[in-house]
């Protein structure tokens, strides 16, 4: 049997970004897997509260005061009282890769009973190519024991760079409020042993609970929007980032994977609270999806930032009439890119990709 080479740790190339308003007790369970890495804690809510980080972790912590100090007036683009604030962590990171996880997500077990090292799987997903141009019925062809199926063109078998690795959740599934209300007891017990590339041209609901990405390839697109305090909507932060990210990845020829790894999601949030947050989103998404499905980016949008600014313009034109919120969001998208570029000057900026293919 061929020996499987160990996954590189990437411990100096990856930051773990964790938004929290409660505590970081969950890190104890993750210690064997997370301790080699640098953590970026984004403390939401009351900045005077002291969030204790368990001993032995290397970290930097930012509360609202820090965010305001670092970004000045541009801090307006970072949400308050919503886990969307996590994207501040992406902006201040200096690493190539990001893994973000919620503070109610724990280590899951695979069907054999073994603890799942979610970070290891995300790294594997990010380091090997994606295949967005043709669906492989055996899922990820680069996995041990898998391959491309008959009929898969050889010219497409090299794949493209993977920008995003979207993991899943056992136990409490990521349902919206109406579904939670109807099925309060449903638990996800199905372990689907697959990773797959989401085909080019297909949108998906990206959940931020267990997510990794190549910050150099796609970081500026991972803006989690205006949510929470003072905003008419919540629980659509990761959705918004996911739709923008997917459109940009499709345009630039980058891949988005979904599937393994699983984490164990322990806390079901209150469905009535969720419903209040999501309410507008449930209606707005009926406009948002056709919008994103029809976004086209011009050929000269060859960087993520250019693509993102272009999307913000289209948001203003086409979604501004749905609700004034989208005018504010479009402005915040621009502010985000300005802040990103300020904190990540050209030395660290991802190189322009040649000939960004238009849709």
């Amino acid at each position: 049997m061929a020996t499987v080479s160990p996954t590189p740790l990437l411990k100096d190339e990856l930051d773990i970004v964790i938004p929290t308003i409660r505590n970081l007790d969950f890190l104890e369970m993750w210690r064997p897997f997370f301790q080699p890495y640098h953590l970026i804690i984004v403390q939401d809510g009351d900045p005077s509260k002291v969030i204790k980080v368990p001993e032995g972790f290397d970290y930097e912590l930012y509360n609202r005061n820090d965010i305001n100090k670092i970004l000045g007036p541009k801090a307006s683009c970072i949400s308050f009282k919503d886990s969307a604030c996590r994207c501040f962590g992406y902006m201040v990171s200096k690493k190539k890769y990001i893994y973000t996880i919620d503070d109610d997500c724990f280590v899951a077990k695979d069907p054999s009973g073994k603890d799942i090292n979610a970070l290891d799987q995300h790294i594997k997903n990010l380091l090997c190519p994606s295949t967005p141009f043709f669906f492989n019925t055996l899922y990820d062809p680069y996995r041990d024991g898998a391959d491309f199926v008959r009929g898969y063109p050889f010219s497409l078998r090299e794949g493209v760079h993977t920008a995003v690795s979207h993991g899943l959740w056992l136990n409490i599934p990521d349902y919206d409020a109406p579904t939670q209300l109807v099925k309060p007891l449903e638990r996800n017990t199905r372990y689907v042993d697959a990773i797959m590339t989401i085909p080019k041209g297909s949108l998906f609901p990206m959940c931020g609970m267990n997510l990794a990405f190549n910050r150099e390839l796609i970081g500026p697109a991972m803006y989690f929007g205006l949510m929470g305090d003072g905003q008419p909507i919540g629980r659509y932060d990761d959705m918004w980032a996911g739709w923008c990210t997917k459109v940009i990845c499709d345009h630039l020829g980058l891949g988005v994977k979904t599937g393994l790894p699983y984490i164990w999601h322990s806390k079901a949030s209150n469905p009535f609270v969720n419903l209040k947050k999501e309410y507008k989103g449930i209606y707005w998404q009926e406009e948002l999806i056709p919008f994103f499905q029809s976004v086209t980016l011009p050929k000269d949008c060859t960087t993520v930032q250019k693509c993102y600014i272009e999307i913000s313009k289209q948001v203003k034109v086409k979604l501004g009439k749905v609700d004034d919120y989208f005018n504010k969001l479009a402005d915040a998208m621009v502010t985000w890119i300005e802040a990103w570029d300020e904190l990540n000057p050209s030395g660290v900026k991802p190189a322009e990709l040649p000939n960004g293919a238009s849709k």
Partner: protein
Amino acid sequence: MSLAIKDDEIDIVIGAIRSDLTSFMNEWRPMFSRFHIIIVKDPDLKEELKIPEGFNLDVYEKPDIDRVVGSSTSGLFSGYACRYFGYLVSRKKYIISVDDDCLPAQDPKGFLVDAVAQHITNLTTPATPFFFNTLYDPFTEGADFVRGYPFSLRSGVKCAFSSGLWLNLVDHDAPSQALKARQRNSRYVDAVMTVPAGSLVPISGINIAFDREVVGPALVPALKLAGEGKFRWETMEDIWSGLCVKVACDHLGLGVKTGLPYVRRIDRGDPIVSLKKEWEGVKLTEEVVPFFQSVRLSREATTVADCVVEVANAAKERLGSTDPVFARAAKAMLDWVNLWKLVGSISSQSPAV
């Protein structure tokens, strides 16, 4: 929006490439015995078929094929393509078709997988091609649509085609099979999913089910390789017709699912021997896939048959000069649509031919 399918609406179609079907039929007996079965013998097969007792079946051999379609057309049905004759003469609404070197698989708990029942479930529950659900099939027990999935898309569309997978010997092309001669698939991925609209997929013919009335005209053995043989990695006909099916389904707003059920494919053949033949199929794929990716169907194409005609004409125009096999494929598709009108679309009230 779940449909209910009755047993008498289903035909199980088996193309017999090998003559002794005894162990095949006996192993599938628990799953097959309720249904009517059509067995079509490869016209090139000389030996008598051996089929065990106790099934409700009709067997078609070369003389029957000649009688129905004429001996000049019957060459279309040689080798693996013989099963298409079964699709043509079936009088049922749904077809489930499995290669004769596939047996029931075991799931991770050790239970035998009822591939027939799973295909029926796939066809009777909606497909969701317009937005990817990260928890896969939302209509499976214990699953649902995830947060962020638009409500207006949650009723889904009709699933017209279900494509299953294989444990043990996977459906590789000959080069991959030869390179990884000892690799066997033991990974049971417990999921069914809809292949998104606009995304093409290589649909293997080894383990499939479909709504015959809707997609029958697209399942045509059109792309026959010059060196086509009696091993799956020496064929392309299913890949070509699968791409036709997907393009037509995308155009008409129908769904194609992939994933469960698994069947267990027996080891058979030597891919290195096949490699000595020209890698015709592998080379042709490089033309076939970009062609299908660029095909645009007109608003006037409102049935699968219409779509097939437009694809055939486009193939003739764009690929005809690249390789004569494409011009022949285009002609075969047009002939098939006519044949389907004559023979295939006779209603289920009529007696079988």
